[in-house]
């Protein structure tokens, strides 16, 4: 699933090389022992040979981190690396301007941009904060017309931007929009109709406004190159007949994720046309209302069985559990199963999961209870990633899952690398057990939904549990903490979390010491997001040595003051320090509601809305 492309798959981004770029004269590589190597004219030929060789070699270098390192060797390497970089990743769209990016990297084929900070997903920031795709598409349209792929996360994209994309880049092939907004079905229609080479159109968890345009019909006639079409987040009905015709003429189609307006009967018809699918999102997985009574039900089982390549299954947006047996034939092949919109019980899950021996990624709702998790633990020995979401996402709701299911998973799924677990109760013992049973953990996100909730058996803070995680899981790079936590927990994190790059904190800690421990102790820290914790200006100052190494710091509802933030802004000129007020907050109090700061080569951005003050 594309959702798997989380931040934790990234390699570390070294600081922008422009900042560290020193005089090149001392480091210019000259191959021959020519005497007067200071004039380029004389050493042109050897340099040229070197550059050609370098260019060929650097083409093979794919890792961003390696490329960033290579670009720092000398001016020559910097230049060649810039010419050969085909995939450009920018983790914060405001860290560098489109002009600077296009000036340096002229032959980019793929652009990967990230915009808003993650906490914006939880309504902690007013809308229209920024992260507009527009300046980027315009700059690239002029400078890099051979751009083929665009991947955006948390950015605002308008219909016009989509039109520009389709019109300016003739060979455009892939568009992936994750958690984006600002566009609608009419923008999609224009984009699709003009993009003759389109292979991938993935809309994931994005907000698409319903302009009542039949965008599916806009795919050009004739055989299509489409390999992936994901639109499960589009909340409006689609022209099914057009979709059916599209699928029929897309022999390369491997990934298809339907929205909830596609009934199971329609799904059947599509699957019959596309048995070569590897990734399928089933849509509603229930019959449409106009089911003919007495009409024979199609043979879903055989149809699913015919899809021998199916490895990734999702959807089930309005599931009628009676139809679940249809997927039995493919369970044994599945490596990824997303039931996170299917409100099913343990009993309904068991016949499915007991056949999923190869499952590596499993997303599910807590409706399956501890019992369901035990069933998962019993069969899914290859499980790498587990996400358990709450049906009822409120603090004081009943918790169908607890430390019991959690511990069972740790005992059964020893290869676990990534876990996201929402629950109402947890114990240190269970967390400690997981730290021992699953040493390969890279991502550990535990959300005990009640704020400040302690170990529900011993009543103690959850310090020891999280401490064990950082101590025993030596590969850990991403951590999200919750429950009742004292400064001690953060002491552990600072002491043992040496590889931690992303840390999320909410309603935790007692004092500034907690934040100090982390800022002073975690050298790899890139992304730090904190809310509602008692950390003040003194703590903020303790990170001055590190902020240029970080992508961003978010602190909301903490104890920061304007003076404190101002101090940071003065001390660090390459840091953009944004103070964000909630939209309806009129007056300016001394306390800072939200601080969002990030390194940037460009200084304060010029598109900041009224509620943002840049210090």
């Amino acid at each position, binding site marked *: 699933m594309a959702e798997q492309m989380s931040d934790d798959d990234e390699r570390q981004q070294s600081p922008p090389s422009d900042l560290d770029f020193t005089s090149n004269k001392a480091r210019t590589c000259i191959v021959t022992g020519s005497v007067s190597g200071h004039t380029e004219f004389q050493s042109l030929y050897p340099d040229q040979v070197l550059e050609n060789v370098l260019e060929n070699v650097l083409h093979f270098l794919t890792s961003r981190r390696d490329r960033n390192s290579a670009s720092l060797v000398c001016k020559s390497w910097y230049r060649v690396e810039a010419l050969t970089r085909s995939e450009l990743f920018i983790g914060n769209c405001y860290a560098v301007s489109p002009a600077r990016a296009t000036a340096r990297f002229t032959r980019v084929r793929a652009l990967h941009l990230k915009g808003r900070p993650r*906490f914006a*997903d*939880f*309504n*902690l920031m007013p809308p229209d904060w920024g992260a507009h795709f527009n300046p980027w598409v315009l700059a690239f349209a002029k400078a890099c017309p051979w751009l083929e792929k665009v991947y955006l996360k948390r950015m605002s994209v308008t219909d016009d931007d989509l039109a520009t994309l389709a019109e300016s880049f003739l060979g455009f092939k892939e568009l992936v929009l994750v958690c984006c907004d600002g566009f609608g079905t009419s923008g999609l229609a224009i984009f699709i109709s003009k993009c003759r080479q389109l292979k991938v159109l993935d809309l994931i*968890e994005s*907000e698409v406004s319903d302009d009542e345009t039949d965008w599916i019909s806009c795919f050009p006639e004739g055989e299509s190159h489409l390999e992936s079409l994901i639109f499960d987040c589009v909340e409006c009905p689609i022209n099914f007949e057009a979709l059916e015709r599209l699928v029929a003429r897309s022999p390369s189609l491997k990934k298809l994720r339907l929205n909830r307006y596609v009934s199971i009967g329609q799904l059947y018809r599509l699957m019959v046309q596309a048995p070569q699918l590897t990734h399928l999102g089933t849509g509603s997985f229930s019959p449409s209302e106009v*089911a003919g*009574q*007495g009409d024979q039900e199609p043979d879903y089982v055989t149809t699913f069985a015919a899809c021998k390549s199916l490895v990734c299954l999702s959807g089930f947006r*309005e599931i*009628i559990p*009676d139809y679940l047996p249809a997927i039995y034939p493919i369970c044994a092949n599945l490596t990824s199963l997303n039931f*996170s*919109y299917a*409100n099913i019980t343990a009993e309904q899950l068991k016949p499915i999961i007991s056949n999923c021996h190869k499952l590596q990624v499993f997303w599910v709702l807590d409706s399956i209870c501890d019992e369901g998790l035990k069933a998962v633990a019993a069969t899914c020995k290859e499980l790498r990633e587990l996400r358990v*979401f*709450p*049906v*009822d*996402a*409120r*603090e*004081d709701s009943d918790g169908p899952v607890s430390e019991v299911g959690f511990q069972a998973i740790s005992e059964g799924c020893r290869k676990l690398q990534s876990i996201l677990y*929402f629950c109402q109760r947890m114990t240190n013992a269970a967390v400690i057990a997981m730290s021992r049973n699953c040493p390969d953990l890279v991502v550990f996100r535990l*959300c005990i*939904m*009640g*704020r*400040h909730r*302690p170990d529900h*058996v*011993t*009543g*103690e*803070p959850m310090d020891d549990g999280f401490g064990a995680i950082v101590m025993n899981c030596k590969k850990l790079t991403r951590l999200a903490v919750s429950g*009742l936590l*004292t400064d001690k927990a953060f002491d552990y994190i600072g002491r043992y979390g040496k590889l931690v790059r992303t840390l*999320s904190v*909410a*309603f935790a800690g*007692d*004092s*500034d010491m907690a934040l100090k421990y982390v800022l002073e102790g975690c050298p790899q820290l890139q992304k730090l997001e904190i*809310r*509602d914790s*008692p950390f*003040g200006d003194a703590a903020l100052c303790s990170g001055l040595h590190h902020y240029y190494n970080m992508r961003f710091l978010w602190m909301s*509802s*903490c*104890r920061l003051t304007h003076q404190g933030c101002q101090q940071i802004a003065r001390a660090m000129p390459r840091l953009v320090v944004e103070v964000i*007020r*909630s*939209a*309806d*907050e009129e*007056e300016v*109090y001394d*306390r800072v*509601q939200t601080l969002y700061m990030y390194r940037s080569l460009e200084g304060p951005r010029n598109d900041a809305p009224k509620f943002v003050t840049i210090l």
Partner: protein
Amino acid sequence: MEVGRKMANMLGTEHDLNFKETELCLGLPGGIAVVAAGNETESSSSPKINGKRGFSETVDLKLNLQSKESTMDLNKNLDDNGSKEKSGSAKDPAKPPAKAQVVGWPPVRSYRKNIMANQKNSSEESGNSGAALVKVSMDGAPYLRKVDLKMYKSYQELSDALAKMFSSFTMGNYGPQGMIDFMNESKLMDLLNSSDYVPSYEDKDGDWMLVGDVPWQMFVDSCKRLRIMKGSEAIGLAPRAMEKCKSRA
């Protein structure tokens, strides 16, 4: 954002962040120093704040913790952060008030929250989560009954229940599934010519159908009322049933 406004108001009015009466115990419950309340069932309060407590102590304290958590709000953040000493306050352990929901907590994306809310709404609308009560009339019976179709998982169970309600409604020629065997034309004709009772139902469109045709769940969703009629009277429904029989044969 309500949170922000609340905090801002607090700050505007008071500089001394000494909200003792709302200060709540963050430390280990054994650390209730001064304000040992009468309401608490805990008899002895250990003077050590960070010491571990024995299990017996925790049992008593459970209720206390609940109530503390439930009344904890963001005021907690305004506590004097210098002091690590947490004094507990007496809270009525009996009835924790409902928590105000905090913005963006728990951290579930609004996209997902909306979907779950929509699922809940639509299932409530179509009565999936509630009961599916339908009137049941039987020819010749003096009064009607009501059954909740959600109580049953299959036609068999429904048959049994109806049989209990109306003692003259027997299984008769229904076959092993307790359903009318549509596949067998002669059996069907026998049934409809007999004086045995046959269940029929009125569906969403207002048509009267013989029970047993569609999958159970679909039946539950579309059935508006049930009528148990004599086989001979059900002959009016039979042409449809006969057509279906023929089309399947």
